[in-house]
């Protein structure tokens, strides 16, 4: 319907398809009303105070408080005015407040057999009495009775809004006798669509046609809500002016909003004549104070609708409005219920997880939830998606833009009109529904729907100008169907979908907040456990080493004192006791070292691996001078960024392992390679020792894991666990591979960190779990 955005002009609009809409004017606030001297100021046309009435009835205007005659229509025959006034004076005049609908004062039998239906209503200043020729009394056959007896039950049986509309069109046509009756509905943009019609032969059909919003100016819409019935009995009529009886009053001071006889604009009448429509009537369908639609009727011949029929028509409009309201409410409730169920499914899915909203992209209900073809979850600079979504950068930009709007829930079914870049991906995402979870972080969930190319049949080309040869713009002469292909829009998001998206947002915020609290608890718990662990290792350090020392000490004393008295075997046993105690002491020390590696603060700085390796090789070579070891070092090694002491510990572990497990090789070959890779720099140490089976590779870096028997190779089995801890605290990776009897290869890589960015301690995300969003 957006083809109509390019409005032609006010005048063109004024002349637009008024055959359908009983008002003849439209407005175009976007243009100055004086753009063309020939043009009407559509939106300022005094439709409420035309100063004239239609000729099929007569009008008296009294002062609201004094009941003094102020004005009368100019069609009272001489002398009849006084009798009418006298009748009014004798009637019980309405005491209802200004703006209330007219009340019937019954039938006035004037002289000469004239019978008039009289009704009256008040404006804030005046009392208006309308006189219309009375139809003969119908008794039980009155239209209102048939409506209640026959039509209402059918209405209640209807299953859809379209069926309701069809029943109403047919009933309205039966009641009034017009040649064409149609029911149409306004969409959110104000465009009308014909839902149902009933036409006599010789009348054009407009079923399914659309009428642009511009057809009815805002002031006319407001009047339709106020006065729900309108009749133009004869398009050829000559308006009857109002004659003023007092001095201080203009005809245009008299508000005819509620008057049934109110005269309409001559341009509209011209247009009606052009179209061969000589009579028209409309009944408003008002739901919750909003103009939902209209029942609109037309005749090729003049047609008067009597008061009784008019009341029935008004009643029909109200019944229809009630039924539509109830149908819409029921379907919205049903839709919301279904959507809530999906919301529950989504929320429960998320509750079972760690609460990371990125998981939403894996919940199947997310797509069904909004009948979407794609879902994207954006958090800061990350995007997770499922289904058909625009390219990542486009999603980020869109999320950014939506965040900038500051709305909690945003929806558009024609995104490119609000966000120009969306034109580029309208085939996958012509429309979006989005909820913004956090105001602090960018955290947006977006549902996408693809473009649906729709063909709309307009009643006449809405943009075709109607300028005649004389340069004046005339009302349209044709409603020939004119088809338009609407592009750039998706299926609109329903009110229920938008509402439940808001509910989902609340639920998600709840989850995110709860997770944040839980993370905080975990952080507290971690701190507590760390403290406990510290106390524990202190105890181990102090108390566990003492007994080891005592055992070793007393065994030595026994051996010293009683060496001669003891047997060879007893001495060997005591030797075992001493060795065991010493080994236990080493284990305790190793465990303490390991625990220290995890807790000591990292003091990171550039470390010259060249120097570090050379010193270590020199030191290790001295330990086993008898061995034939061939060290193969490269001419240069990358500078690593880390804690020098810890890097030395890690490297020493690698080198001494290589030395230890190549014992028995002659020569033992130990190669230290420099590694320079995209993800960082490091070293790799290879030996030609006993190696190991890759079957056990996963155990290599565990605490106290040994792949060799203790007799074979000494050690506590903690060295590689310490290396792993050191490397991981630097954010690096460590690996090992081996082949039995061939040798092993161990290496690590540390990321390159700009010294300025390197914190002293491990990164906060690891040590201080923080809420991931909000």
């Amino acid at each position, binding site marked *: 319907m957006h083809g109509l955005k390019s409005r032609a002009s006010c005048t063109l609009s004024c002349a637009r398809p008024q055959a359908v809409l009983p008002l003849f004017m439209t407005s175009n606030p976007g243009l100055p009303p004086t753009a063309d001297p020939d043009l009407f100021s559509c939106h300022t046309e005094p439709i409420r105070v035309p100063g004239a009435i239609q000729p099929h009835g007569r009008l008296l205007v009294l002062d609201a408080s004094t009941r003094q005659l102020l004005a009368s229509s100019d069609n009272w025959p001489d002398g009849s005015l006084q009798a009418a006034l006298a009748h009014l004076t004798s009637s019980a005049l309405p005491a209802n407040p200004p703006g209330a609908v007219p009340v019937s004062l019954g039938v006035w039998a004037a002289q000469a057999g004239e019978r008039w239906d009289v009704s009256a209503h008040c404006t804030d200043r005046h009392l208006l009495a309308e006189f219309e020729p009375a139809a003969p009394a119908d008794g039980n056959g009155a239209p209102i009775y048939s409506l209640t007896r026959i039509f209402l039950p059918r209405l209640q049986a209807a299953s859809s809004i379209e069926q309701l509309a069809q029943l109403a069109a047919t009933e309205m046509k039966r009641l009034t006798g017009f040649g064409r009756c149609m029911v149409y509905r306004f969409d959110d943009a104000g465009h009308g669509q014909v839902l149902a019609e009933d036409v006599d032969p010789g009348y054009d059909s407009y079923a399914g046609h659309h009428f642009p919003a511009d057809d009815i100016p805002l002031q006319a819409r407001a009047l339709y809500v106020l006065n729900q019935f309108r009749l133009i009995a004869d398009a050829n009529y000559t308006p009857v002016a109002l004659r003023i009886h007092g001095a201080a009053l203009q005809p245009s001071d008299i508000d005819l909003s509620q008057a049934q006889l109110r005269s309409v604009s001559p341009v509209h009448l011209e247009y009606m004549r052009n179209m061969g429509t000589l009579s028209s009537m409309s009944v408003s369908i008002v739901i919750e104070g909003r103009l939902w639609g209209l029942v609109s009727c037309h005749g090729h011949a003049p047609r008067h609708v009597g008061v009784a029929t008019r009341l029935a028509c008004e009643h029909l409009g109200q019944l229809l409005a009630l039924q539509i309201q109830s149908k819409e409410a029921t379907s919205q409730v049903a839709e919301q219920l279904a959507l809530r169920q999906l919301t529950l499914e989504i929320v429960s899915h998320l509750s079972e997880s760690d609460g990371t909203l990125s998981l939403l992209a894996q919940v199947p209900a997310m797509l069904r939830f909004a009948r979407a073809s794609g879902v994207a979850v954006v958090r800061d600079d990350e995007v997770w998606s499922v289904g058909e979504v625009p390219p990542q950068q486009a999603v980020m930009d869109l999320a950014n833009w939506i965040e900038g709007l500051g709305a909690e829930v945003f929806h558009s079914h024609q995104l490119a009109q609000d966000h120009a870049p969306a034109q580029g991906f309208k085939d996958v995402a012509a429309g979006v529904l989005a909820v913004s979870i956090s105001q602090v972080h960018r955290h947006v969930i977006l549902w996408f729907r693809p473009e649906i190319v729709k063909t709309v049949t307009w009643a006449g080309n809405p943009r075709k100008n109607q300028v005649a040869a004389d340069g004046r713009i005339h009302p349209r002469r044709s409603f020939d169907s004119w088809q338009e292909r609407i592009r750039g829009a998706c299926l609109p998001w329903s009110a229920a979908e938008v509402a439940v998206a808001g509910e989902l947002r609340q639920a998600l915020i709840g989850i995110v907040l709860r997770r944040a609290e839980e993370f905080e608890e975990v952080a507290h718990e971690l701190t507590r456990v760390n403290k406990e662990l510290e106390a524990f290792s202190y105890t181990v350090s102090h108390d566990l080493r003492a007994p080891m*020392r005592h055992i070793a000490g007393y065994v030595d004393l026994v051996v010293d004192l009683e060496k001669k008295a003891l047997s060879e075997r007893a001495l060997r046993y005591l030797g075992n006791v001493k060795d065991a105690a010493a080994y236990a002491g080493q284990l305790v020390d190793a465990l303490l070292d390991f625990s220290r590696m995890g807790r000591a603060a990292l003091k990171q700085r550039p470390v010259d691996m060249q120097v570090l390796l050379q010193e270590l090789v020199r030191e290790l070579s001295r330990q086993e001078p008898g061995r034939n070891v061939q060290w193969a070092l490269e001419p240069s090694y990358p500078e690593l960024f880390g804690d020098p002491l810890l890097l030395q510990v890690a490297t020493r572990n690698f080198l001494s392992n290589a030395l230890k497990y190549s014992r028995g090789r002659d020569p033992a070959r130990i190669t230290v390679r420099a590694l320079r890779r995209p993800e960082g720099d490091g070293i790799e140490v290879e030996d030609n020792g006993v190696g190991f089976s890759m079957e056990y590779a996963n155990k290599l870096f565990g605490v106290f894991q040994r792949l060799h028997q203790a007799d074979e190779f000494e050690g506590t089995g903690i060295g590689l666990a310490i290396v792993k801890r050191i490397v991981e605290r630097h954010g690096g990776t460590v690996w090992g591979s081996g082949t039995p009897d061939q040798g092993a290869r161990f290496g690590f890589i540390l990321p390159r960190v700009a010294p300025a960015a390197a914190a002293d301690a491990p990164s906060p995300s690891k040590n201080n779990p923080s809420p991931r969003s909000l």
Partner: protein
Amino acid sequence: MLKPILLVEDDKRDLELTLIALERSQLANEVVIMRDGAQALDYLRREGDFAGRDAGNPAVVLLDLKLPKVNGLEVLQAVRADPALRSLPVVMLTSSQEENDVVKSYELGVNAYVVKPVAFDRFVSAIGDLGVFWAVLNEPPPGSSKASRRGEPL
């Protein structure tokens, strides 16, 4: 004229082993033994049970960290806060390798920090070295008590 060595140790096995080690190092210094921190402070300040002892500070205090009542660090702190004891040499003789303990001890002004070796022969030589250094080689600050050789009356 040797000053005594004050050994503060609560564990009786550690005490016995330390005394044996000191004995093997052939030191002539008397060894005064205190079993907890409070007692040690009373001795040093000549208070409580030790109000009547002769004036004079020991050549060195060998102090365990983990002690009943008043722990080693607290004893050290009290010693450094006391004008009469401030310059007394104090050596931590402990099982703890905790960096924290080491750092704190030095912050409080310890003269040396020795982790007891597990192997007895190394333990003996460590104690011997300590004793020789502090009781024989080191010139104690003025005001240290006049110590007598082993076997000689006080």
